[in-house]
């Protein structure tokens, strides 16, 4: 954490603005329909290019072309300055023309981001300074005093993606699904998969699906993890979990295990597929607000664990 803004000068990283960057910025700005939007896109593009240039020097792979900031139509409708970091996710690069204590980060630029870098752009000098980064923003104001030094960035990026994000189940009831999870309807729309919800009795409140790739050791092995909230009240939530084949397959591979884990990763229940199973399912279980559990899907040496929690208090507000 930065205590003093004077310290910023020591830890900020100078990066020169190239002609290339300015050409892209001018070109993209010229596609906008208003001067304000043009200015916004101009700055966003300079910020993204500057960060990209810096990462190229460090040897951290990135991909401009798959970033939204590089997409002409998305730029029109959103204030986004994202940079795709290969294998990790998108880093948002926010520009400041004058150094002030607070950097504004628009809401649509906060979702599905692995972090935020603040870039001071001194256009007259054709020079930029990367002031620091952070992993999250509260509201839309990012205080510079909250920034971490760029020296910590390589380790931070390296540590990402090692664990799947925690799934807060209450939020599903608000129709909010974490990255990687989708409603069954969305998934059916996207693939030709034939997911069948086998609920003879219950009408679930909501159902989420995540495709899991167990492919590393076993070759093409995608399965679908289905979690359904059967009922929910103040005391507890009733949950049903199934694993089904994906990628157009009819049967699960044999010896596929599905385990329910406690908060401390002890196996509470486990089921295993046999030769011609269309699906496997855990016995229904319930969870109370404040509790957490895990689901582990295992096939030979490959395993994936997903962590879930039920927040206490209001819908969607997880107490820290």
């Amino acid at each position: 954490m930065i205590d003093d803004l004077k310290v910023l000068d020591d830890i900020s990283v100078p990066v020169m603005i190239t002609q290339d960057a300015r050409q892209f910025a001018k070109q993209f700005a010229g596609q906008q329909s208003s001067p304000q939007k043009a200015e916004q896109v101009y700055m966003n593009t300079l910020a993204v290019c500057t960060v990209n240039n810096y990462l190229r020097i460090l040897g951290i792979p990135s991909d401009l072309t798959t970033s939204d900031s590089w997409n002409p139509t998305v730029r029109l409708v959103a204030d986004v300055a994202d940079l795709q970091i290969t294998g990790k996710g998108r880093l948002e690069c926010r520009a400041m023309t004058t150094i002030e204590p607070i950097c504004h980060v628009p809401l649509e630029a906060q979702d599905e981001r692995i972090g935020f870098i603040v870039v001071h752009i001194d256009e007259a000098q054709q020079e930029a300074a990367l002031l620091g980064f952070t992993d999250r923003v509260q509201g839309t104001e990012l205080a510079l005093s909250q920034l971490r030094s760029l020296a910590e960035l390589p380790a931070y990026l390296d540590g990402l993606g090692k664990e799947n994000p925690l799934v807060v189940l209450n939020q599903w009831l608000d129709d909010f699904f974490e990255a990687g999870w989708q409603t069954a309807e969305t998934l059916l729309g996207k693939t030709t998969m034939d997911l069948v919800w086998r609920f003879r009795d219950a009408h679930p409140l909501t159902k989420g699906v995540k495709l899991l790739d167990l492919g590393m050791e076993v070759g093409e092995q995608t399965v679908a993890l289905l979690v359904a909230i059967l009922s929910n009240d103040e005391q507890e939530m009733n949950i049903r979990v199934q694993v089904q084949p994906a990628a157009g397959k009819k049967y699960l591979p044999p010896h596929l295990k599905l385990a329910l884990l406690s908060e401390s990763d002890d196996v509470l229940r486990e089921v295993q597929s046999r030769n011609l199973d269309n699906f496997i399912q855990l016995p229904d279980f319930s969870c109370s607000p404040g509790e957490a559990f895990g689901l582990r899907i295992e096939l030979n040496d490959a395993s994936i664990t997903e962590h879930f929690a039920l927040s206490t208090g209001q819908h969607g507000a997880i107490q820290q």
Partner: protein
Amino acid sequence: MDDLNENLQRLIADALTCPVGSVKRQQKIQRIYQLVMKSKKLWKEYSPYYNDALQEMWEYCCQHLEEYDPTVCSVITWLDDRLKKRLRYHRDVRNRERNRQVFTIQTDEGTTFDPIENLAARSDIQPILEIWQETLNWVQSDPEERLRNTLFRKRQDINAQVLFLMRFPTETPWSIIAERFQLTPAETKYLPQFYNRRCLPLLREFGISRGYI
């Protein structure tokens, strides 16, 4: 200066012991870059392509640290050599460009003759619609009705088309949008996420399908 050079030499030597692409190596490179840039000891000139040459030098040198030989010169000198090479390259390119361009000519009578002015004008070509106009047309017409049917929590009045038109061409703040639709605090929080995850992909696809990328 000696201190700086010693530090840099040590950092380079350390970096070379770390595997390429490893976090440790990236950290060493970051340190080298920071020290050098802050020292302001690199060769500096005021040419339009200086920053581009500098970027190229850094990319090359940091990916080829093994080429530095401490017995030959200081680190700064090694970096400068590469930098000046890139600067020469850009200067040559620029000069070649210059020689290919046509400039105004001074005639013997002292008047100015501009060859470009004397070229025949192009006949009127159908202007191509700007990207934003094409996009606006597409959003407004929504030919496959996908935008209208992408709903926020089953509300017919809050769909991708409506949201796009509120954000473009004029960017309505999210707070105003929330007010207009009388959203609860929870809904206000999730609307931008809905916009990012469900609406933007539709526009992304459109951009790609039109070959804008």
